[in-house]
């Protein structure tokens, strides 16, 4: 694929939105399955939570939080274009949503580490 005509901010925002959406959609059943383990008792849930304390799981959690925040912020931008007709300043909104996603990821890291 020729990347030369695909480098404007709103295109990059689309790529981020699609990749984050795909990964989150694949993660969702896993998430529900893990939470469902709580049905079989507090001990099982506690065991799962202890397992997630390994650094790799924490890193994956941080990535997921950033993906979720990025998909949220990018989605709000798309909704503002589609439902409110905010056609101006789309590029600024891309920048703001990227910043918001990274900020949420940073806050998560600060709280978790």
């Amino acid at each position: 694929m020729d990347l030369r005509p695909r480098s404007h901010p709103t295109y990059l925002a689309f790529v981020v939105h699609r990749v984050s959406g795909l990964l989150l959609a694949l993660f969702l059943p896993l998430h529900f399955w893990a939470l469902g383990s709580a049905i079989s008792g507090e001990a099982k849930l506690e065991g799962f939570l202890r397992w997630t304390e390994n650094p790799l799981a924490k890193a994956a959690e941080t990535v997921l939080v950033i993906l979720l925040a990025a998909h949220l912020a990018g989605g709000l931008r798309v909704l503002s274009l589609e439902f409110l007709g905010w056609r101006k300043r789309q590029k600024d909104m891309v920048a703001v949503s990227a910043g918001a996603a990274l900020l949420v990821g940073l806050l998560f890291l600060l709280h978790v580490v």
Partner: protein
Amino acid sequence: MAEPASLKVSVWRGGEDGSFARFEVPARANQTVLDVVTTIQREFDPSLAYRFACRVGMCGSCAMTVNGRARWTCRTHVRKVVGEDGALELRPLANLPVIRDLVADLAPFFDKWQRARGVFQPKDAPDGAVPEDFAVVPPASGARQEADAGIECIGCAVCYASCDVVAWNPDYLGPAALNRAWTLVNDVRDGARQDRLDAVAGDAGCHSCHSTQSCTERCPKNLDPSSAIAGLKRTLFWDTLLGRR
């Protein structure tokens, strides 16, 4: 950017499975990409096929892929797009069948304008008769401003060639046809609103657009087809929700 003494131009020759031919063309001040193509055809290879008419950005016939991007070549100065080494790569427009060399077949593009009901249908005279009186359309009204925002399309197909959704779904109507439909949806004199909204709904229509805004980014007339498509989505959403369809 300082202009190199000569341009190294790669020009697409042949059909879909063609290849690049290379030409060394003298660089001149203020030349457009179309000037370069004309120089090649007149002085190097008279068999080169390309398309142009007005040369002043009105007719929409000279669009090509220049260094990877769809552009109107008659209004594109070489110095704005050429690489530092004088490299210029010219292909026919993407997302369309190649007839030969730099000429793409625009038939699918214009067929989709028809499918999107891109023809104005007078409300007062469905049979094509001349209405008795002039329609009064306040220029400051919201609907007219929406229509005016998209009305200057010259049909050059730059947006269509730049759209990934067209590449992914050959049935997709594309930015230009949908932009045209949106101008007519906002035309108070038009009587085919319902039929047109039906024609532009669904996966082959506005609902496949992902707002990458490549169309808006590339439109040489600075139109905003992406927002027009968003307008169609919005209108169809409320019409569907409120049972107006």
